[in-house]
């Protein structure tokens, strides 16, 4: 049993942390957020130059061949800096899915382009309730809802109900006819898009076996979930540290407010949540590629519950303990709050995972 990271892993994390500290300051991020696209191609190219876009790709395709642990370290560092670029969607989930589903030709064409930052590929999976995406004669129609970073994608990986009533995965060029992208900012300053497809031309990616395709999408999203957990821990780490500092410096009634025992105990509770969340994010990274589907999902649900509850508790109390300052757009704290709020609701909220865990535990 060993909780240490290797020197390589530490070096990778340091690289990304330095990048965030130097090239992704809060002011820089604000300017990017307020820009028209809401993300920066220059930053994206910088990440490509750092090599982190290639992290999860096989070495055959210009990748580094790393896995969820390294991804977690990178995500944690990006979390603290509240990266607005589509790392999770385009550098974690999409490559994981392509590797599992697509032909060798497709992989050869797209994976190196992902690694160099030349192409951004994003999975569009969740259907809008009223208009699920369906395939007829190789074209897609329907609506995908709140696709994270869907607006900046060059290529969309779209799940759709086929004519045979199965789930298929299709590649859709975002500029193609019949593709309408409604791009918008989300609460946490990131971007998402609703994607309306009207008889849009699409290329079938999967081999046409319903179960295998669904499982591949699930597997990619599970890797994404573990990465999201690591991002959350990175943000919570920063949030707890900033709140502790605030309590030490902020004076009221003639002393630092960190002297008030009720606030001390609240901070202790926040630390308890953080450490439990950190433990579960390690577990999530180690188990997110477990081929035993039920065991994997049970563990990931446990992680998401722990981390979702920590997100909520830490975010709410960090704002509360900062008082009015916590409510302002001016401090990064309120932006951490919003990202933690969004994370809690992403890939299934706490109630969803708590109930899924209960079901899977009972069946086990």
């Amino acid at each position, binding site marked *: 049993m060993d909780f240490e990271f290797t020197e390589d892993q530490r070096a990778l994390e340091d690289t990304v942390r330095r990048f965030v500290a130097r090239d992704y300051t809060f002011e820089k991020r604000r300017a990017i957020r307020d820009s028209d696209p809401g993300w920066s191609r220059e930053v994206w190219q910088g990440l490509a130059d750092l090599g982190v876009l290639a992290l999860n790709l096989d070495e055959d395709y210009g990748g580094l061949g790393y896995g969820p642990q390294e991804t977690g370290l990178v995500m944690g560092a990006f979390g603290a800096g509240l990266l607005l670029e589509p790392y999770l969607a385009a550098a974690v989930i999409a490559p994981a899915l392509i590797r599992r589903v697509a032909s060798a030709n497709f992989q050869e064409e797209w994976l190196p382009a992902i690694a160099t930052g030349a192409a951004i590929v994003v999975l569009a999976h969740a259907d809008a309730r009223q208009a699920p995406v369906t395939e007829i004669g190789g074209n897609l129609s329907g609506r995908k*809802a709140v696709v994270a970073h869907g607006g900046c994608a060059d290529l969309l990986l779209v799940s759709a109900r086929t004519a045979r009533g199965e789930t298929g995965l299709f590649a859709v060029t975002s500029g193609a006819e019949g593709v309408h992208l409604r791009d*918008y900012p989300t*609460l946490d300053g990131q971007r998402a898009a*609703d994607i309306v497809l009207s008889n849009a031309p699409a290329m079938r990616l999967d081999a046409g076996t319903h179960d295998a395709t669904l499982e591949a999408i699930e597997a990619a999203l599970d890797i994404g979930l573990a990465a999201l957990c690591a991002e959350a821990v990175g943000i919570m780490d920063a949030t707890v540290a900033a709140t502790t500092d605030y309590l030490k410096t902020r004076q009221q009634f003639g002393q630092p407010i960190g002297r008030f025992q009720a606030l001390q105990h609240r901070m202790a509770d926040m630390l308890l949540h953080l450490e439990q969340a950190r433990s579960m994010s390690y577990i999530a990274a180690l188990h997110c590629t477990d081929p035993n589907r039920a065991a994997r999902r049970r563990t990931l649900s446990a992680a998401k519950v722990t981390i979702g509850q920590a997100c909520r508790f830490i975010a709410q109390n960090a704002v509360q303990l900062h*008082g*009015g300052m*916590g409510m302002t757009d001016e401090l990064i704290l309120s932006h951490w*709050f919003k990202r933690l709020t969004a994370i809690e*609701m992403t890939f299934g909220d706490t*109630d969803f995972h708590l109930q899924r865990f209960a079901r899977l535990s009972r069946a086990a």
Partner: protein
Amino acid sequence: MDLNFTLEESAFRAEVRNFVGEKLPAHIRDKVMNGVHLNRDDHILWQRILHQRGWGGPGWPREFGGPGWTPAEQYIFEEECAAAGAPRLISFGLKMIAPVLMAFGTPQQQQRFLPKIMAGEEWWCQGYSEPGAGSDLASVKTRAVRNGDFYVVNGQKTWTTLGQYADWIFCLVRTDPAAKKQNGISFLLIDMKSPGVTVRPIITLDGAHEVNEVWLEDVKVPAANLIGEENRGWTYAKFLLGHERTNIAGIGIAKRELARLKRIAAAEGRLDDPLFAARVAQVEIDLMALEITNLRVLAAESAAGREKKAPGPEASILKIKGTEIQQAITELMMQAVGAYALPFKQADIGPDYAANLGTGYCNLRKLSIFGGSNEIQKNIISQMILGL
């Protein structure tokens, strides 16, 4: 014990309900019902409609032009207004400075200011908080120096809610820097149009502009705008803080928002999720209990009579539970719609009701911070009620 309202009170409720149903403009109601921020004109329009009916100062005694309602009638009035989607009354004039003027103002001050408050002709804001002071309100640093018939004021106020709309600000200022903390404070009324007054927006985490910084640089304030005696301002300030806490539980608003939560949850099919349904039930039950607790406090205050009108420490119970309930409702509404709560300021993405739920959740985090943080309220309970 009888928890029913009297026949007279029920008739009064019907009268209010009819009036609001008829007179509340639809565009204002729709905004309120969907959690959209109101602008200055919306608030003023509604205040003037109420004023025409003689209800411009719901908590005011008859001698100052108010309807002279009992606490129960005021409660019914606010509950019906909230249920129907009427704007919350802007309290800075009606519920904060007005009672101070009535209790401590000169007849000239009363005549100058009170009618315009009731008529919706002048908008007030509060100049208590200062940067760095937080819950420690008595640590006032803004200085006022007497110079003949004027005070010259320098300093900075913050968290000034809706200060961007205000015509007047009531301020705590330090007039005797040598005196100990609570002493040496005076209570001044300052015209926002005075030279040297600058309002700068503070954008909050929901992207909204509700609060402001107010900078005061060599602002000349007529000495006639001093409330009561110089250096006794803390007395008036505390009196005001007591009044700020009337209707602090926000029962009417919480009921309206709970109904909205239940509509949204039903539309999203979330009531079939037993955990979600239990969370909704929990907040509904908490609100049922708080409504009775609120009525109990109201009854005790009525029984205590007119002379002791400012709410006692029991109001802290109402503040804590009331804000927790309102926050829980916004959180559940956001969770009920899931992903479609995330689009930011997008009216036309996802279901209509989803548009303001994410920002609504963020915005209401303020409730447990402002108006005396919930931690301060627990200090009050433990010290004033429990004697610890």
